[in-house]
């Protein structure tokens, strides 16, 4: 009996501690919630708007987010940039599972004419020093797609040169290179078959 009478105050402190902690954390959560949402939004917006020339659009890009299905890709979302109402470009946020070690997430901007405006790797787990040179910060490799379209080079040449295609291969990273080339090709194929609809759909909204 003595045991329990000495345990009670300790339990009371413990319970009080839990209550105080819960209240403080709830308060902090309320304080930071809005800011964290804003920061997440800004992070996404910075990435998408970096794909487009400043002044080539005047709409809220994040409002145009639209999930779509692309065969061979894990996830895809499109953002539409518009200048005084007419669509100027589509930015595809895509995930391919064909990387050397896991998913590669990238952004590809395609003009209304179907030309690649730019691309950027957002997330990947390729080997540091080898496969990670697909990143723009690490090498110029990704820049070779700028200005390319499905006709230039023709669709069957959309592969790294190590696999008989028209594009440079990152040295010792044929799989990583191939995954990115293939993903961009799939975006362009989607744009070719469904681009009109995609541009019009988002415009109508």
């Amino acid at each position, binding site marked *: 009996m003595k045991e329990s009478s000495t345990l009670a*105050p300790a339990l009371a*402190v*413990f319970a009080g501690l839990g209550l105080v*902690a819960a209240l403080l*954390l709830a308060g902090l959560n309320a304080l*930071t919630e809005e*800011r*964290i949402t804003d920061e997440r939004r800004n992070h996404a917006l910075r990435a998408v708007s970096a794909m487009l020339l400043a002044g080539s659009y005047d709409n809220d890009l994040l409002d145009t987010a639209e999930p779509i299905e692309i065969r061979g890709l894990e996830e895809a979302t499109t953002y539409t940039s518009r200048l005084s109402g007419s669509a100027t470009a589509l930015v595809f946020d895509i995930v391919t599972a064909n990387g050397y070690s896991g998913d590669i997430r990238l952004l590809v901007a395609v003009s209304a004419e179907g030309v690649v405006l730019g691309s950027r790797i957002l997330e990947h787990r390729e080997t*540091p020093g080898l496969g990670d040179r697909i990143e723009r910060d690490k090498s110029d490799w990704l820049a070779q797609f700028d200005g390319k379209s499905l006709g230039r080079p023709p669709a069957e040449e959309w592969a790294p040169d190590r696999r008989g295609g028209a594009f440079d291969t990152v040295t010792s990273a044929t799989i990583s290179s191939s995954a990115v080339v293939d993903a961009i090709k799939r975006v362009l194929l989607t744009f070719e078959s469904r681009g009109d609809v995609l541009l019009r759909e988002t415009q109508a909204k």
Partner: protein
Amino acid sequence: MTDMNRIWRDGLWDNNPGLVQLLGLCPLLAVSNTAVNGLGLGLATLIVLVASSVLVSALRNTWRPETRIPAFVLIIASTVTAIDLSMQAWLHELSRSLGIFVPLIVTNCTILARAEAFASRQPVGSSLVDALAQGTGFAAVLVVLGAGREMVGRGTLLDGAEMLFGDSAAGWSIPVLPFEQGLLLAVLPPGAFIGLGLLVAGRQYLVNRSREAGVKSRPAPSTADPTTP
């Protein structure tokens, strides 16, 4: 006052959590790929350690064996959650770069070890100093290891400083070594183990040397001469 000096010396050198106690190795090895990442996690850990030690010490007379550990974990987890939320709100890029390792500060054994071994038996003042000393010692190892791995592996120093210090720090990145592609091994996980091993060995070398110097200043010890019994 000498007591406080002793505590500082313990945390920074004699009983450094990273180099001597070898505690908290998981974050230490995982996040020390750049100096800025190391500093970011080091500071976050320091803040958690200070907050939890002060709280544990302030309530030290109320602990009972049955509630002690759960209460410590509750305090530590709450502090970490607070730090994590604050970093997501005000240091968003850095918290992205550190990823899961900020929430995982909960599992850093240094913090529970200091709560259990020191703060739960000592007054608030000493506990605060102990937390500052141990936290600084841990952060120092993170920064030194991060800087070393970044220099050897990437040839830069302080890359990404803008994540911690704001946009004005964007140009702080110093190209230290002239090559475009550093020694890959240093950035990969094995580089973390090798780097930490070198730091531990380096510390041991300094300790041994100062001990030998202390011995030489005294009369030659008998073991140095094999002819004497």
